[in-house]
């Protein structure tokens, strides 16, 4: 028995993608108009991929997960050797006009692998070996991504790890240990690993008026942009913060700020609701499916998308430091659109085959 695709999820995804194109059009005076057509092409490819993935039987993904995961690890190693450097990060394969970021796809492979591992488990609790395995599944690709180094993308692997622990059933005392380790790691990172500019970014979150023209500049300009949008916005492509280029990275990290300036609280809310619908439909899948793999994958994807939405909006609204985490489906970037569409395609495939038993 097969079902139709989840229409609610599809409508929300297409809405966000359409809004992203409108936003790119609006900021084209600041970032150039060439990006619009490129992104439109990526979106068409992404939607086609989503459609294709949704026809594949759900069980295929569970069985193929280890192979896909292995392929992703190979790609991550290859990009460290053959990849092209952009902005200090060796993370791109470039073939003529096309450039692909394997780390975006490796996240999908990692999420599949975590779900497949959880799906095979019959126990309700994670023993120590299982804990190590789940941790390693995520840690290996994260380490490779950090070697590029791309902190922003590496962070987006985090939800898969936490969901792996949480659904798998990590014992409370291990959570305490993990939390303690986390605090210690953060402390060590603060004193040794983090660069001064990164620390400044964190400090400006705590004190918005700190260094408003240095480390706090981006977030300050972002808040000015969002705030001056008001209830109804200044109009697409009319926001002064965006047009006069006060707003940094307005097609990528701060795309939401440009959108909020142009369309105001109404447009901002609409976009937020569209993301809410996507997350809600993912939540519905966890309610409807009877398979542990299906449920785990839906939960991991849910956590990942929620993480990116929250971290990105938290940064745009001034609650979190700037980390380079983009808004999925909305920020400019081909690899991100393609990998997100592929991920949602697998979600649709699970939705369609959710009652099929062999």
């Amino acid at each position, binding site marked *: 028995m097969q079902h139709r695709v989840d229409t609610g999820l599809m409508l929300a995804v297409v809405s966000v993608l359409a809004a992203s194109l409108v936003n790119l059009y609006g900021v084209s005076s600041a970032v150039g108009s060439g990006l619009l057509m490129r992104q439109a092409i990526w979106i068409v490819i992404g939607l086609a991929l989503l459609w294709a993935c949704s026809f594949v039987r759900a069980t295929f993904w569970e069985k193929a997960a280890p192979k896909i995961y292995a392929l992703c690890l190979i790609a991550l190693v290859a990009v460290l050797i053959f990849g092209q450097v952009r902005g200090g990060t060796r993370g791109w394969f470039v073939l003529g006009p096309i450039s692909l970021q394997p780390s975006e796809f490796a996240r999908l492979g990692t999420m599949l692998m975590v779900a497949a591992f*959880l799906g095979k488990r019959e126990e309700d609790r994670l023993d120590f070996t299982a804990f190590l395995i789940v941790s390693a599944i995520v840690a290996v690709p994260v380490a490779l991504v950090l070697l590029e180094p791309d902190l922003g993308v590496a962070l987006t692997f985090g939800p898969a790890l936490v969901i792996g622990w949480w659904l798998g*059933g990590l014992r409370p005392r291990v959570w305490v240990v993990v939390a303690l380790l986390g605090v210690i790691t953060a402390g060590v990172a603060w004193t040794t690993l983090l660069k001064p500019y990164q620390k400044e970014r964190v400090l400006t979150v705590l004190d918005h008026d700190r260094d408003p023209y240095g480390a706090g*500049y981006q977030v300050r300009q972002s808040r000015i942009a969002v705030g001056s949008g008001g209830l109804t916005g200044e109009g697409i492509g009319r926001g002064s*913060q965006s047009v006069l280029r*006060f707003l940094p990275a307005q097609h990528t990290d701060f795309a939401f700020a440009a959108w909020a300036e142009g369309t105001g609280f109404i447009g901002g*809310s609409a976009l937020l609701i569209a993301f809410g619908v996507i997350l809600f439909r993912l939540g519905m899948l966890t309610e409807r499916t009877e398979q542990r793999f299906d449920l785990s994958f839906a939960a991991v994807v849910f956590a990942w998308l929620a993480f990116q939405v929250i971290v990105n909006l938290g940064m745009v609204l001034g609650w979190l430091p700037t980390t380079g985490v983009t808004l999925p489906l909305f920020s400019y970037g081909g690899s991100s659109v393609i990998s997100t569409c592929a991920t949602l395609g697998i979600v649709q495939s699970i939705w369609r085959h959710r009652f099929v038993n*062999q």
Partner: protein
Amino acid sequence: MAGPPASVMRIRTDPVLFRHRSRVVIILVFGVLGLLHLKLAQLQVIQGDAWSQLAENNRLRRIPVPAPRGRIFDRQGVVLADNAPAWQLLVFPDEAEDLEQTVAFLTDQGIIEGRDLRQKFAARRIGTMAPLVAAENLSWEHVARVRAHQSDFPELSIVGGFRRSYPWAKTTAHVVGYLRRLMEGETGGHDDFQPDQLIGAIGIENLGEDRLRGVNGERRVVVSAVGRQLGMVEEDGAIPGRDLAVTIDTRIQLAAVEALGDNAGAVVVLDVNTGAVRALYSSPSFDPNVFSSRLSPEQWSEISDDPQHPLQNRCFQGTYPPGSTIKPFLTLAGLEEDLIDPQWSVYCRGSITLYGHTFRCWRRGGHGTVAMRRALEVSCDVYFYLLGQKLGIERMASWLERFGFGRPTALGPAQEASGLIGTPEWSRRVRGTPWYAGESVSVSIGQGPVLVTAIQMARAFAMLANGGYLVQPHLIPPATPAQSEFIPLDPSGLKVVVAGLEQVVSGSEGTARSLKELPVAGKTGTAQVARLPDEGSNVERPHHLQHHAWFVGWGPIDDPEFAVAVLVEHGGGGGSVAAPAAATVFRAALQSGPGALEAGPLDFGEGG
């Protein structure tokens, strides 16, 4: 019941526990999303007006950070071009409340003409946040006046910049050159050029452009509504241009200035072995520093309307009849063609009739019997009339071409003149008239349709001094030694010619015997500008019809180092005017010694 198979067991694994756990995550996430939505409402709906206010007061300025151009040094390390600090006045037209008021203020203060400023406003691109450079090289007084009214005109800003300065002014004007503003639509072949940018117009400033030019930086600053700088957002630092050491020797250059005095003319000094230009002076000269500021119409007309054309570089843009300085080269041609030998002699009666026309020797009384060496020493015209007749115009032209005449020396500047070697073919093609046999006779003493530049002459005499190498003249030391053209000449023939040219200075009858005390060789030339009907009378010729005076030679004789070409426009006799001038240059050159900065293009650190 035996129980279901294992595979079914796995599929049937109870998802309820997982579902409970995932619900916790889902509820948590929607809680946070709700908070974010509240935050969005707070920023946009509740505080919206306050943030809008901030957006309006946000003023980002892009302030250019000019890169200093590389300095130019002579081979001894003497500064030929430097940068002096200067104040620039920037206008940010987007920020002005009423541009007309700003224009009126600047006009009243005498800082800039209103018309010029309006033209600039009209020409600029909209929405770039970049300022206009309204005025450069402001005086302290102007700076003070703008500063005093800063709060009335927040769109004005005064920033530091550079003004090019040439400490030797007129002495090195043509060779070092000056800067000019890039014209509308012109990129000069460089993508990174910005409008209004200065580039080298002529001379070394032009030749060394790529090395000397720095990359301008830009600073992005946030300013308050009254133009006060609040903070810097971003800075792309300026990359200074690199310094350049050139082949010029300022001491020889100074001697050239002294040698020409008030006369118009040219002095070129070459290293006979490498082609390095040691001096290149064109008189009258001009002060290149006037081009560093905006030229006033008076200053411009003073330079451009000067009947002497000081902007013309007489060293390689002016072409002149060579007169007798061509004779050594025709002698070599005759020897190489086996038409004459050193013993071949003629009898000079003071004139000779060829093709039914009488051609005079410069010496009325004649020279009597002259062979090669003495022909050069006394510069006997009759000898060369007959030699020219033997050679014929085609062979003369072909040999002159081989010795580097009639084509640019590729010193570098694109505006170099080729000169002219007249031939029957040229006559038909360019003049549209047939070649007259008498013209060949004129060419054989360097008159008629034959024109050369001073630098061609200097190089040709360097070739005599170095044994047949036509060197590549250059001002910027090349990374690898420049290739010379080798002309395979019979060494014994060359030796006779050289001996003849030594006699010009040291012989008792030599035309440049006034230089006797110097260890040099060379040839005088007195090039007729026009033939007067009352030829030979003692009437003083008007200045513009006076002969051009040449002396070209080299020294020291034993181990030649320098070739010197001196041309004095309308100076009179080569022996009486040009030779003494050349003596001044030779004295300086022979004392100059090796350069302190010999080893190619040196860096003096990164500019500044």
